[in-house]
């Protein structure tokens, strides 16, 4: 959508002093954010890529372009298992959190007693660090934890060893529990905000026209809250794929998720492994990038089909 401003700037060829001043002001106003993000964020990504291709003169290594680090990494089956684990934890927790968040937002939109208090309460996990969630998972879900004690109380198990292992397994239910606990409020906030913005009129109209509740949800509500769903699931999935602390503490050990693998490479005394770590980091970025951009592309296509964008 070309706008009047830019049209004036570029097509007339001549700019008045006022216009030029406005342009300079605009550039000056955008400069800090552009510089910070381009230099830090872009710079970090470019450097990571260069290093993973063998450019590390500060270690006395410069074999750029050298694909052997990627070759070694992608050639090992451990990498693919790690990648699978990383995506599995990320995907399962995002899906569970999303379903829970949609149900919660649909309940929150209705009036009920104590709603003001509830709106404080449900945001609690959003406000505190992931490490707190991990501590709570250790306390609740560990073999000597509260859940295990409750099961002993009702006579289901006789000693802590009988408790089904939740933490430190490759099924990762402890990790998933932490992500879900922390991200349901985040997704609910996003979806609830969209619900507030659109009002309930279209749903009521559908109900009066005789739509069933299932029809109303899938044909009216879901398409409306899709922007909130897409943005919050994108953010949460990307976070889950790149997170370190939960898989490090609650994971099942080797094979680890990719961020933990990268960290171990990186802390290796052998400098050459740092480049391997960089290749791991870049692989995380590439995989996450491909998945997220495909997701966005599908979503945009859907919006275009509906004629919304």
């Amino acid at each position: 959508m070309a706008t009047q401003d830019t049209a004036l700037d570029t097509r007339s060829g001549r700019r008045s002093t006022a216009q030029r001043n406005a342009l300079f002001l605009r550039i000056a106003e955008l400069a800090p954010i552009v510089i910070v993000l381009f230099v830090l964020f872009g710079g970090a990504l470019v450097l990571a890529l260069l290093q993973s291709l063998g450019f590390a003169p500060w270690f006395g290594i410069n074999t750029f372009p050298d694909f052997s680090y990627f070759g070694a990494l992608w050639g090992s089956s451990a990498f693919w298992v790690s990648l699978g684990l990383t995506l599995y934890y990320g995907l399962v927790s995002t899906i569970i959190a999303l379903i829970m968040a949609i149900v919660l937002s649909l309940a929150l939109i209705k009036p009920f007693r104590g709603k003001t208090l509830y709106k404080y309460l449900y945001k609690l996990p959003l406000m505190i660090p992931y490490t707190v969630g991990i501590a709570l998972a250790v306390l609740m879900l560990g073999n000597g934890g509260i859940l295990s004690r409750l099961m002993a109380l009702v006579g289901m198990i006789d000693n802590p060893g009988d408790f089904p292992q939740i933490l430190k397994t490759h099924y990762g239910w402890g990790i998933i529990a932490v992500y879900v606990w922390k991200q349901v409020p985040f997704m609910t906030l996003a979806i609830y905000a969209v619900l507030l913005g659109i009002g309930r009129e279209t749903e009521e109209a559908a109900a009066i026209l005789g739509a069933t509740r299932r029809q109303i949800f899938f044909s009216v509500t879901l398409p409306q809250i899709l922007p909130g769903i897409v943005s919050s699931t994108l953010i949460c999935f990307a976070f889950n794929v790149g997170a370190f602390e939960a898989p490090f503490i609650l994971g099942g050990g080797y094979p680890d998720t990719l961020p933990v693998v990268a960290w171990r490479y990186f802390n290796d005394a052998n400098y050459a492994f740092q480049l391997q770590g960089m290749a791991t980091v870049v692989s995380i970025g590439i995989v996450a990038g491909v998945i997220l951009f495909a997701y966005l592309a599908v979503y945009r296509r859907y919006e275009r089909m509906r004629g919304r964008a």
Partner: protein
Amino acid sequence: MARKATNTFTHLSPFQRFYLVAVAALIVGPFLPLIIQSLAFRWAWPNLLPTVWWMEQRERSPIPLAWDYVLSPYSRVYEATFNTMVIGIAVTVICLAICLPAARVLARESFRGKNSFEFFLSLPLIVPEAAIGIALLMIFINLGLAGSYVGIIIAHLIPTIPYMVRMLTAVYQGLGREFEEQAMILGASRWQILRMVTLPMLMPGVVAGALFTFLVSSNIFLLTFFLGQGKIITLPTLLFSKISGGTLDASAAGITLIVSLPGIILLIISERFIKEEAFGKGFGN
């Protein structure tokens, strides 16, 4: 029929009622055993309550043993709290200075490539943190910034800027131009307009953005852990070091409660400030 239809929109179904209670229990429930754990002296499996509470040992320690440790300098809680505050405040101030002018342009002006630019501003939210963290660490080691406040503060800007700029843009959009135009007609200078008209009107939004940025910064683990190099600890990294073995003793429970405290305080004072719009805004539309 119509009455029934309205009912489904204004009343919770029994399932929804149950669900709200269940979610609340899942969210708040675990904090109860956490508090008990921090006050326990001996709490063996399978007891649901400690067999020996600290009170029964009070001749040995006037305050709960775990809390005695948590509140002593040995736990490094004060150091971590101080670092979290300093880093959070610095990040918030710098972030505001960077995002405020950008938010004005994004809210008020249109230019070619604006959509792509906004997408670029959201990118840090969807690039895995581990990738950024390790890559930045390499740069910062070479610049001598690893393990320094400056390095951590700079790194924290990456995940905070996208939220801050979204929240401030929403605030600017909600603010009409009329008052500024009036001031301009009355002969106010650009600086006067900014100082006496725009900023006071932006204030509530700025406070909300600042609180939220502080919150995000104080919750960051990975970037602090990677870039702090163990030299600078904040509350999340302190807790990580206490629980990285996979167990939670009484003092770790106390530290967990301390680490939750800033978030709980911010929740109480900021609930009404948090603009839900900033979260509802989608990617690429």
